């Protein structure tokens, strides 16, 4: 089952390479739907309340190097997998409705990207995780570079240049992570046979002196991916270059892999280092919240408003994880799903607006709501969810995060609250700027077409559904989260023995 989930998208993509141009988009959509169906079946079979991995696969992959093909699902990744499957349908279907250049290759790369992303969520072997984490970038490199937008007219970089910048930024982190992963396995093997299994490494324990530097190698990879403040340099250019259907999944899911990596790898494997550097990461997270929010206030390009709001939101999620309380991490997982669910429709709406207005500049938009009440209503729900309106799942997520943060670091919590307030401003600014005000010339205020509605409505329904029943995620995530966080807060006996033996 779990194998099917992982490889179905890629298989559909490979077959799609040989299909005629008109059919391939629908074939790809079908592939994404099949993936979601498998994911949903797995979610139904998921045993509630268990902390351990379920539906696992273990096969030796490269015995000489100690690398295992090992997958598994638990409360940490279950809903992120579902989020991935849902958003990919959105992105692919949205692209399938429109003419694409070289569609076979486009959809192949989209589906390959889905497999790579699912792979990084499902991997339970440290090296397999690193492999998929790096692999995710390759399809996106081609998608951004070949189907992206050149900004040379406005003095910006070409799509290829923007993408190269993104590749170099993100691979700096990822490659250091590769060294870190290998070092982790070697120091935890204590001279014995190498094993990259995350569980096995956690049992064996990593010596504190190594934890300190390996922690940063991993943190670098994850923070760049999010992106966090100071390492976000690739984000504006890449977001401006990206084709919008691709940005739907890129912004919706890929940023989460970084946050997820902290929960899956860093907390369990480097608990002492995590406790030691908690404040530093929290500072970075707070800086991301403040910086992202302030930038989202001032940008006029709608893509960048969404992009910087992501920086702020991811800052929130990181703060939740590094509260090192179960509450905070529960909230972080809920918020990861929430954010994916709001940012994806946001970019679809941006794409729709772009078609209607021909511009991405907020100042030359407006008045859209006049003749497009359905579009405006859908957008309003998304905007209200973004600003964490009480009643939305985002409110619950942020509440949990802040709750966790209050328990551990009250000062940080006070600053983080300002982020909640600021999100209201940029979300409403975006909504008002596009939908209200006077309609400028050249803006076609048309109702959302049925085909786009078919994509947008289910995503908005997901938002509403989660708002009504967030326990769906919280209940299933909690046991696994407790386990990850407990690794830091309650050092296990084996680690104490390790400390004693030193």
């Amino acid at each position, binding site marked *: 089952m779990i194998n099917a989930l992982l490889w179905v998208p890629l298989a559909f993509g490979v077959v799609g390479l040989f299909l005629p141009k008109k059919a391939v988009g629908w074939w790809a959509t079908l592939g994404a739907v099949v993936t979601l169906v498998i994911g949903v079946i797995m979610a139904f079979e998921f045993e509630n309340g268990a902390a351990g991995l379920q539906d696992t696969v273990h096969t030796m*992959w*490269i*015995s*000489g*190097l100690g*690398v295992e093909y090992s997958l598994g699902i638990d409360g940490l990744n279950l809903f992120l997998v579902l989020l991935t499957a849902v958003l990919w349908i959105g992105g692919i279907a949205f692209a399938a409705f429109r003419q694409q250049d*070289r569609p076979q290759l486009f959809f192949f790369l989209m589906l390959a990207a889905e497999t790579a992303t699912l792979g990084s969520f499902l991997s339970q072997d440290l*090296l397999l995780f690193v*492999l*998929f984490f*790096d*692999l995710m*970038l*390759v399809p996106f*490199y*081609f998608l951004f*570079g*070949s189907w992206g937008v050149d900004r040379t007219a406005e003095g910006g970089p*070409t*799509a*290829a240049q923007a993408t*190269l910048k993104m*590749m*170099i930024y993100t*691979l*700096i982190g990822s*490659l*250091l992570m*590769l*060294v870190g992963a*290998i*070092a982790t396995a*070697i120091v935890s093997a204590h001279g014995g046979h*190498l094993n990259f299994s995350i569980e096995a490494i956690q049992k064996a324990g990593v010596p504190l002196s190594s934890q300190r530097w390996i922690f940063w190698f991993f943190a670098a990879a994850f923070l760049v991916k999010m992106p966090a403040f100071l390492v976000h340099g690739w984000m504006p250019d890449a977001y401006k270059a990206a084709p919008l259907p691709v940005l739907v999944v890129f912004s919706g899911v890929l940023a989460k892999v970084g946050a997820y990596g902290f929960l899956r790898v860093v907390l369990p494997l480097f608990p002492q280092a995590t406790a030691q550097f908690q404040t530093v990461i929290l500072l970075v997270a707070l800086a991301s919240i403040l910086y992202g929010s302030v930038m989202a206030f001032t940008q006029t390009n709608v893509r960048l408003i969404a992009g910087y709001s992501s920086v702020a939101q991811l800052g929130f999620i990181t703060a939740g994880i590094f509260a090192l309380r179960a509450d905070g991490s529960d909230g972080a997982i809920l918020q990861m799903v929430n954010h994916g669910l709001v940012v994806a429709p946001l970019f679809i709406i941006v794409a729709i607006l772009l078609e209607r207005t021909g511009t991405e500049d907020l100042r030359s938009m407006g008045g859209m709501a006049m003749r497009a009440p359905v579009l405006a209503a859908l957008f309003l729900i998304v905007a209200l969810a973004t600003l964490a309106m009480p009643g939305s799942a985002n409110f619950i997520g942020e509440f949990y995060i802040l709750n966790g943060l209050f328990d551990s670091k009250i000062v940080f919590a006070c600053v983080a609250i300002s982020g909640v307030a600021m999100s209201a401003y940029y979300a409403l600014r975006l909504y008002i700027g596009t939908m209200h005000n006077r309609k400028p010339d050249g803006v076609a205020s048309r109702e959302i077409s049925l085909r786009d509605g078919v994509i947008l409505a289910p995503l908005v329904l997901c938002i509403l559904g989660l708002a009504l029943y967030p326990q769906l995620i919280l209940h299933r995530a909690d046991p696994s989260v407790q386990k990850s966080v407990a690794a830091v807060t309650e050092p296990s006996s084996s680690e104490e023995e390790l400390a004693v033996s030193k």
Partner: protein
Amino acid sequence: MAGEGFVAPHIDYAGLAPLIALTVGFVVILMSGVFTTTKRWAPGLAVLTLAATAGLLLWKWDDDISLVTGALRVDDLAISISLIAVLSAFTTILLSVRERAADEAGHGEYYALLIGSVLGMVLLAEADNLVTFFVALETLSIPLYILCATNLRREGSLESGLKYLIVGSLGSATLLYGMAFIYGSTGSTDFTGIAHGIEAKGMLHDPLLLIGIALAAVGLAFKTSIAPFHQWTPDVYQGAPTPITSFMAVATKAAAFAVFIRFFVVALGPEVSDWQTGLAILAAISIVVGNVGALAQTSLKRLLGYSGVAQAGYMLGGLVVATEKGVSSLIFYLAIYLFMNLAAFAVIVARERETIFGDDIRGVRGLGAERPALAWPLTISMLALAGLPATAGFIGKLYLIEALVEGNYLWLAIFIVGGTMISLGYYLRVIAAMWMTSSEETASAGAQPIIAGASPEADPIDPEAGRRWYLVAPAILTAAITIFFGVIPQPLVEFATHAGASLF
């Protein structure tokens, strides 16, 4: 003496069989050069020779025999490296079909020299004492000096041959000087004898020996194009006929690394603490110089030349740690290096004949839309050289880094990672040219070929070159193998572990 009779020394013909096959092939092909119809069968004879050699090599797999009173050792290390050389020569023959250079130099000579060079490589991989080491190295190099200059009407080719000859001789002389010191201080030419000599006399930190080791390392660094002894590489790579460049890039590097490993691990093993740091520094320099040098290149052959310098730096890391895992990782990397590079070179050859741009990066613009059968192999080759996952390049880097971290050379592992980041800057540029720029610009460019010293008459354009099976098939096949070993690396890892274990 009656009754004793004359006893001929025992000769193990079975062990020598691959060398004999190559020698016979060399002579026959050269002799066939006197016939005018050679053009047709010289390549065929060469393929036949290589096939026979490969068969005989595989037959000896898992053996460990010492030949000619210890001058040669046929073990899995030697066989694996010989196979790499044979495979590379085979691809070179395919790429040489309709190559101007072969026409101009005479087919008999061209292919005979190629086989002669392979002979040197097999000999070098088996060399187990200083004399065979040196003789083999010259047997390998001299045909290559000539082959580089076979494109007689092209200035660049002649320059390349001359430059390679001069620098190569300098390298050989340095190496020979080093060998003299080593022989002088240990009193033996046998690799094992040298090791015994060092241990018996307690020669750790002996200055005479250290000078010898340093000079030998420099000589070998010339051959493996490790910075700062790499300056010839880009020029020679660019000037030589492209099929020959591919052969030099892959086979020469593999053979030189084979003897590098054997000499340093077997003969100088007891001295490991003395040379380890020195080689590590060379590797680090090579990684930085190669990667930074490649950034500004517009000629694909030069770019691959510099990338080869950087990759040699990565590979040297496997030798630095001098562990079984390190040596295995180096052999693994050499094997995948064969496939990664040949895919790229096959595409370059095709584009050289197809467009007016020669090996300039402009020649691959818009290739993704125009010739996907060429664009994919080059893309995969670049991704693999950059070490991205799902290609064998990733596994190769993983293997090397694992060996380095285990061998307490974490800093060198970080150098490899840093080098890889820089390398994205040029590998991805090639990919961007293929997929992210349109080929319309190709048509509007000037009509004069831009290969140094070339003329349109000398280099007629074959607009169908990109569809010829003998160029497309090797490109696709090597790229497919690169992906295959990226997804299922286990067989190749076992092969490399086996080969590496033969020394320990």
